[in-house]
């Protein structure tokens, strides 16, 4: 199985690339030009902090033995007693921990103190992510979501996407709206970056989903390895394609136009939804899950305006909603030929599997929601979560990092540096003069 190990090395690098730079660019392009560096930095710093924290306690909390919520935090402290032939497994799981924390940053654009983010990330990883990774990926007999409930989650629909989506929801609530939102729609400043980031995320996601075979079931024959990776690869691909179409269809019906941001968002929504399901379903199931996720998420991202919740880059609408769609639909579309060996509702499996999936979602939502709330409140009343209004209006890049992303007109006295007139300058504007 040397090919399998070679593949895991590449898969691990691919998943790290999903955060640095894919997610950073995807989110960065969607932010405003005065906030793009801060948005990118939130991903980079997550990699640095969570990565080191992972080898210290993350691996041990996730895979250092049995436990309902987490394993033994100090059993494998600093990888004590872990042999180097296990390192690639450690590194692979580490990249998951990194991107989960980084995903949350999309909800806090323009306004979160960088110091508060640097504090939130490690605390949240220890209290929320590392245990959730144990509950889902470790799959010991006692582990809550995989072991006890028996919910299927191939690559992290619950532990990564629902978890990050709920945390994003909580942070957006406690941070509050950005100055001027929602009257000012705060449009993305560079959609080409966003498209590039989305494409790189898609590439990286093969490492994420297909690479998750490692922890599924121990030792494989060549045939088993080939058929399972073939399944997860094909499902990941087809669901994503279907989700692009699903998102664009809903967008066309609701707003009359088919947009590039819609296509990029469809890519991510489809990938999120197929993440838990890629091992369990067949290709028809993958297309169905992708199409449903694309359509549902395209509708869901509009809800934040209804609720007055400034989830700036739609982490809730894409990751929480997409994660729930994919995780629950396993109970409908899974086949006994898949990795879990369970027939879903559509294949005569009855409601049992669907119930387990729903329960798994509820546990993930509750665990993440309650504990993230505690962490957010603790930071809010000590360090404070938010930069002051002047700093936010002037731009968080300048206030928190002392930099600006673009220098497009050095030498000119004024090059339209404020950007606020752009929305009101249209060659088609009819004026009564």
């Amino acid at each position, binding site marked *: 199985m040397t090919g399998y190990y070679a593949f895991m090395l590449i898969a691990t690098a691919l998943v790290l690339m999903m955060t640095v730079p894919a997610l950073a660019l995807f989110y960065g392009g969607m932010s405003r030009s005065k906030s793009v560096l801060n948005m990118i930095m939130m991903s980079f710093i997550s990699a640095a902090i969570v990565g080191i924290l992972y080898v210290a306690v993350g691996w041990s909390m996730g895979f250092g033995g049995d436990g309902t919520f987490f394993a033994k935090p100090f059993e494998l402290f600093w990888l004590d007693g872990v042999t180097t032939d296990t390192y690639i497994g450690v590194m692979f799981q580490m990249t998951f921990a990194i991107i989960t924390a980084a995903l949350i940053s999309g909800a806090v654009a323009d306004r979160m103190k960088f110091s508060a983010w640097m504090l939130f990330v490690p605390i949240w990883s220890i209290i929320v992510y590392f245990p959730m990774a144990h509950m889902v990926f470790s799959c010991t007999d006692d582990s809550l979501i995989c072991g006890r409930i028996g919910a299927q989650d191939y690559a992290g629909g619950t532990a990564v996407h629902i978890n990050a989506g709920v945390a994003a929801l909580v942070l957006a609530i406690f941070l509050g709206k950005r*100055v*001027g939102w929602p*009257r*000012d729609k705060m449009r993305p400043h560079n959609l080409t970056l966003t498209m590039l980031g989305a494409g790189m995320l898609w590439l990286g996601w093969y490492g994420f989903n297909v690479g998750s075979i490692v922890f599924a079931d121990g030792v494989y024959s060549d045939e088993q390895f080939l058929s399972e990776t073939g399944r997860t690869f094909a499902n990941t691909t087809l669901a994503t394609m279907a989700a692009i179409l699903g998102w664009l269809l809903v967008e066309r019906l609701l707003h009359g136009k088919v947009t590039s941001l819609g296509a990029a968002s469809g890519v991510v929504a489809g990938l999120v939804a197929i993440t838990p399901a890629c091992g369990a379903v067949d290709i028809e199931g993958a297309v169905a899950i992708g199409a449903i996720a694309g359509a549902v998420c395209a509708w869901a991202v509009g809800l934040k305006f209804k609720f007055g919740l400034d989830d700036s880059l739609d982490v809730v609408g894409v990751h929480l909603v997409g994660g729930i769609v994919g995780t629950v639909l396993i109970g409908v579309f899974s086949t006994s030929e898949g990795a879990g060996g369970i027939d879903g509702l559509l294949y005569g499996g009855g409601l049992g599997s669907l119930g387990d999936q729903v329960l798994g979602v509820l546990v993930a939502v509750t665990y993440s929601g309650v504990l993230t709330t505690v962490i957010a409140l603790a930071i809010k009343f000590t360090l404070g979560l938010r930069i002051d*209004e*002047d700093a936010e*209006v002037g731009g968080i890049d*300048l206030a928190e990092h*002392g*930099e*600006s992303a673009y220098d497009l007109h050095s030498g000119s*006295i*004024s090059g*339209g*540096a*404020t*950007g*606020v*007139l752009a929305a*009101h300058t249209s060659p088609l504007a009819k*004026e*009564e*003069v």
Partner: protein
Amino acid sequence: MKLVTAVIKPHKWEDVREALETFGVTGMTVSEVSGYGRQKGHTEVYRGAEYDIALVPKIRIEIVVDDNDTDDVVGIVVKTAQTGRIGDGKVWVSPVDTVIRVRTGDKDEAAL
């Protein structure tokens, strides 16, 4: 007739435009400008090298108004653009001799 010129914080422009429209101002000239008052600029650092950015971005609004409306328009701009913090800007009023609407040749009040 008077020319009211206001230099304000960029994020206040929407509020000011709305308030002036509600009052009945039908047109204005708006430009993105840079300058400095007591606020001065800020410093950026790239790999240890410091760059002093002396100019602060602002929005300049110019409106020609009837004498009777001058105080109201100035009042609206000041009230709406005020945050009470440094860098809120300035408003000044200058006399205007003649205004002509290019399309029709209308003069002065008729051209407003």
